[in-house]
């Protein structure tokens, strides 16, 4: 019995040591061809990336590993993966602020083939003359409108050409809410699953227009167009499916459900929402987000990117070369481009991009073709997540109690918060 016990214990110990040692052999796969390890940011496209990686390995023999971080866990996963022996060779940052974290790990992509394929420096993350990241997907957002419901209410999409006309339509629908059976706006939920639509995407508009008219001064914003921000926010919250005081607990799913069930006409979101709204996609269209600033007659949708590919500069040179070759293959070869544009449904800012199937993307393209001017994505310049949270918090408080004092808190979070957060993020 004693012997048996000792044997079992020794076995357990030996096993635990083997198990510990086992992971060691995975790393350091640096033969002549090198290998690629992609830490993917978008869980929706995980399977497609796995398939594309398998095809590449089949074609070239270079091993490609794709790991997808869980939603909202990208930074955490990246941080722990980067500390490992076999770190990702290809990863993502979400614009200049994300770059601040990972600059030391970003390979300068100047002169690489894949950078040569990029449609222009608008889509690159360039700092101090170095190319740190390449946008690989362009997305668009605006106000998604249900044409069928609009017609039921006696209006058309064509009527809406400015903030004033939008407001007139919205308030008319809301006034007849009970008679029509639907409200103008879906709930502007301020739960974490939805608040980015307002603290980030909607806030991009006053910010972009300010950048256009006042120029960009790092570290400060004036808040020139915050009155317009207030107007559109008032419009959203007071003409919706629910009481503004309840917005703090409303989620992204709530708004989607309201749209799909035909309880609301308008919903601010982007091309990525096409999947969620697939059931009613034929009724929908996307209109520009008018806030009453600038040349509204020629305003287009908000188009840009916040997903940038970065190559790990601390990987071995063979792995870096393998990764660059893989990227180039993704955006030039038929299989690669097909995988990204058709299977994943991305609009890619590279020379050989294919047209998209996504309805909202097609509308955005049509609008650009008709000479409308897209609104850029400037929210990647927002100084920190904390800044966004501050604005979001103030917006929620204002929604629950719409006083001037509470709006002043939004302005303070926007303007003063910007200076504070910029100073914290960029220590002298």
């Amino acid at each position, binding site marked *: 019995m*004693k012997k048996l016990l*000792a044997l079992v*214990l*020794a076995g*357990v*110990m030996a096993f*635990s*040591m083997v198990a*510990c040692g086992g992971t060691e052999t995975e790393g350091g796969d640096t033969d002549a061809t090198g290998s690629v390890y992609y830490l993917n940011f978008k869980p929706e496209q995980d399977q497609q990336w796995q398939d594309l990686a398998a095809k590449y390995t089949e074609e070239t023999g270079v091993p490609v590993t794709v790991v997808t971080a869980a939603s909202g866990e990208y*930074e*955490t996963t990246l*941080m*722990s993966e*980067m*500390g490992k022996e076999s770190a990702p060779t290809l990863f993502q940052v979400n614009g200049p*602020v*994300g770059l*601040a*974290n*990972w600059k*030391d*790990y970003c390979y300068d992509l100047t002169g690489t083939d894949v950078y040569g394929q990029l449609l222009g420096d608008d889509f690159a993350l360039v700092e101090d003359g170095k190319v740190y990241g390449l946008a690989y997907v362009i997305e668009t957002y605006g106000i998604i409108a249900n044409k069928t419901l609009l017609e039921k209410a006696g209006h058309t999409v064509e009527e809406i050409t400015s903030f004033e006309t939008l407001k007139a339509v919205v308030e008319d629908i809301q006034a007849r809410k009970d008679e029509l059976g639907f409200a103008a706006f879906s709930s502007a939920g*301020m*739960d*974490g699953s939805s608040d980015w639509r307002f603290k980030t995407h909607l806030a991009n508009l006053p910010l972009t227009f300010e950048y256009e008219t006042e120029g960009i001064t790092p570290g400060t914003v004036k808040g020139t167009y915050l009155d317009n921000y207030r107007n559109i926010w008032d419009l959203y919250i007071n003409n919706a499916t629910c009481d503004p*005081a*309840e917005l*703090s*607990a409303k989620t992204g799913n709530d708004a989607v459900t309201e749209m799909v069930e035909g309880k609301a006409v308008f919903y601010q979101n982007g091309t990525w929402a096409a999947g969620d709204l697939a059931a009613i996609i034929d009724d929908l269209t996307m209109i520009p987000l008018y806030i009453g600033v600038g040349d509204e007659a020629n305003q287009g949708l908000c188009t840009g990117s916040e997903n940038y590919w970065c190559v790990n500069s601390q990987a071995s040179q063979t792995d870096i070369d393998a990764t660059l070759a893989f990227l180039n293959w993704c955006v030039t070869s038929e299989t690669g481009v097909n995988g990204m544009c058709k299977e994943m449904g991305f609009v890619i800012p590279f020379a050989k991009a294919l047209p998209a199937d996504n309805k909202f993307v097609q509308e955005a393209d049509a609008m650009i073709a008709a000479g409308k001017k897209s609104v850029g994505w400037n929210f990647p310049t927002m100084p*920190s*997540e*904390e800044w966004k949270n*501050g604005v979001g*918090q103030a917006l*929620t*408080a204002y929604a*629950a*109690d719409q006083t001037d004092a509470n709006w002043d808190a939004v302005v303070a979070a926007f303007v003063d918060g910007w200076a504070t957060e910029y100073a914290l*993020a960029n*220590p002298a």
Partner: protein
Amino acid sequence: MEKALKKYSPVFVLPTLLAFTIGFIIPFIEGLYLSFCQFTTVKNAKFVGLANYKYIITDELFLNSFKFTVSFAVVSIVLINVIALGLALLLTRNLKGTNIFRTVFFMPNLIGGIVLGYIWQILINCILSIVGQPLLALNTQAGYWGLIILTAWQQIGYMMIIYIAGLQNVPDDLIEAAAIDGATAWQTFWKVKLPMIMSSITVCVFLTLTNSFKLFDQNLALTAGDPGHLTEMLALNIYQTFYARAGMQWKGYGQAKAVLFCILVVVISFAQLRATRSKEVQA
């Protein structure tokens, strides 16, 4: 047998010791070192001396979350232990259905903190909306009391079981002797039972104290620190510093906060253990 055990004890201790060293001692020492560094990943740490500690003593959010945590801990420790002891006294009286009640009171402890947090968020928001008060995301008071109700609901059952075990160990002859001497129920409780269950009290106060300081999931799920970090407890504050901020200096700040936090919890719980242990008696 004993001799053999002695001879082979290093062999038996080794696997656990190895696991403990790899899983705890090494990371702890590395963590201590990292609190004096700025870093993005643990490999590229840059030594900055005491700069991180200098920053965090000026960090108002950290001080606020310390105050919030202390005020939460005091109220929840008292509340949980008093109610748990009360329930334990009731459920050691041979009432009908005692076992069912014990099971029911224990059950909330089996549900994870995140799930509980979201469930209570819905419940509390519902009530707040009915009485026309600002919802949790905008309501510090509701957030504070919500956290207390939630943790009390979750932990009372667990502490109650420990108190029941303690009360059942009070020798019957002592209680009988007290009854013969004419002690009232209150006197029996105060002079006999309470001193006899001091060891249970030590354990329960220790558990509730450390649980209160380390509370994280419930805090994250119920309020996430809203509004404006006012209901953010220490553990969540550290997490937010470490992960919600971009820039290598924040990792260092977060790490330094974590080290201070660890020292704080150790010191407070040792002080508590000493204080309550000294009151323990032997029958």
